[in-house]
């Protein structure tokens, strides 16, 4: 037993029920501000935005309720459909191309490569940049009269065309290029971490059985990486839905509103076009999209935590 006379200065021995009680409550007290912040700024604000989306608010929030009228307006809004369709195209291409590039680079890097560290650093650095910087740089590269198109033409391919940035039908693919450039290195890092976690002996055994290296990867390694694929798809889809800065910097949503995404649609209506009600409705639909992706993800995360 310890000698209680060594108790802290100015306090009785920690027997005292008040102090003991305080100690028991301290962890909760420490967490309380964060929980309060979370409840107010995350959950409260979501509810608030939902309420706004049920009103006829335009320039300023008003609480004149119109039911789901704003959602109905949204469904008839051509620009919203363009933005949603764009998100589908952009999101699916972005996720798939990032996955393919990421997996490929990770597997190649896993072949005892010299200078692996340097290559990894090069593949991943765009992730440290702001999407605004990425947008500004690619806007310059994709500029038809001075960028890549002009360069290839100066090599003698006079009829070469790469003017997607100013082509309403193709502009969405410029967003894919820039976003893939920024995020594919990250997917590489995820898969490399996953590969390094796989036991060598499985692969050796498969090789001794005479399987070729590509076959080993396809039949043995890929199934082990299923959880990584799952995580990567979640994170990438999430990045895609939130994409805002890149559109603003690279295309400004143009030409016209050909490269609008829900995030830019919401911002334009809520802050520039005095359509707070409509903007709120579009924000709620974005939240719905994120939840559809998120709930299975969180569920599996928490379940594996319990069993892991």
């Amino acid at each position, binding site marked *: 037993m310890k000698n209680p006379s060594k108790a802290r200065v100015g306090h009785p021995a920690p027997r005292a029920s008040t102090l003991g009680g305080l100690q028991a409550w301290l962890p909760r007290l420490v967490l309380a501000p964060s929980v309060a912040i979370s409840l107010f*700024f995350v959950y409260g604000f979501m509810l608030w935005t939902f309420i706004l989306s049920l009103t006829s608010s335009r320039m300023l929030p008003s609480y004149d309720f119109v039911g789901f009228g704003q959602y109905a307006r949204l469904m008839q809004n051509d620009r919203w459909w363009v933005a949603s369709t764009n998100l589908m195209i952009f999101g699916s291409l972005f996720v798939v191309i990032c996955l393919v*590039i990421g997996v490929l680079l990770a597997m190649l890097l896993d072949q005892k490569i010299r200078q692996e560290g340097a290559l990894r650093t090069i593949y991943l650095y765009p992730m440290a940049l702001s999407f605004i910087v990425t947008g500004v740089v690619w806007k310059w590269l994709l500029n038809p009269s001075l960028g890549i198109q002009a*360069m290839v033409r100066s090599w003698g391919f006079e009829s070469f065309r790469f003017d997607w940035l100013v082509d309403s039908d193709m502009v969405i693919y410029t967003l894919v290029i820039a976003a893939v450039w920024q995020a594919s290195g990250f997917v590489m890092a995820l898969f490399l971490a996953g590969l390094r976690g796989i036991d*060598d002996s499985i692969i050796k055994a498969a090789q001794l059985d005479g399987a070729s290296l590509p076959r080993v990867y396809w039949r043995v390694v890929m199934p082990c990486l299923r959880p990584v694929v799952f995580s990567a798809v979640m994170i990438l889809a999430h990045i895609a839905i939130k994409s805002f800065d890149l559109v603003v910097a690279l295309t400004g949503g143009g030409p016209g509103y050909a490269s609008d995404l829900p995030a830019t649609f919401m911002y334009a209506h809520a802050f520039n076009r005095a359509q707070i009600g409509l903007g709120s409705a579009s924000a709620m639909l974005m939240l719905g999209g994120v939840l559809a992706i998120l709930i299975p993800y969180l569920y599996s995360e928490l379940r594996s935590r319990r069993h892991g």
Partner: protein
Amino acid sequence: MANVIRRQTLAARVSRLAVYSVLILAALFYLLPLAVMLMTSVKPLSEISAGTLLTLPQNPTLAPWTKAWGEACTGMRCDGVGGYFWNSFAIVIPAVLISTTIGALNGYALTKWRFKGSELVFALMLFGCFIPFQVVLLPMAQTLGWLGISSSRAGLILVHVVFGIAFTTLFFRNFYVGIPNELVSAAKLDGAGFFRIFWRILLPVSTPIIVVSVIWQFTQIWNDFLFGVAFSAHNTQPVTVALNNLVNTSTGVREYNVDMAAAMIAALPTLVVYVLAGKYFVRGLTAGSVKG
């Protein structure tokens, strides 16, 4: 996955060559935009219109950089991005320190002082990592107005702290879960209290996760544009907003070299952090997404 069995045949050599070629081509794809950005930022305008993206600068000049820093027009005002660069620091540093401190205490309380419902509290906070911020923009604008800090640096700091806590808590929680409970239990038996245990036992071993959290938050907040554009005014804008204004200010001739120099200025701090502490940056990225 090292030492896979390889036979040094001709086929093996050819495939090695193919592997290296693909890797080097990929490296070029990632590096070229940065190289072009750098080269363009030191070319005079005449060389930009005469040459192509990959033409090396004939008479390199730092004039675009000085113009981007101190004279270029960003919307209404023409004083470059320099002032906004310091604005970003004035927002980022307090926000990073506050959110990391809160995250550390939260992670500690959630793992070493479990109580009924602590898992639920964590799940509740974790959700904050994932919401699309469009859902909070309008209420946030009103709340900042009520608090009397709309369009101020203090307001932006608050916003970044509020939405950064979820991430920092996640980092510290996942790190502290791996610290043996026996140490803490022994200290509790000795009568050490909540903060004393944190200070004496947990904090000394927390350096790696503190670095991860600081780097992650620094990068996130420095690179933020959405909150910056929604909640700042002329004199409180972060550098990302100033950069976007500079590039979209259409007065007279487009000075692409100045645009690129401004983009470099906005990108440098996070690039420096990445080069110096890339390992921790990657750890932050993969935290919570790969179970390790």
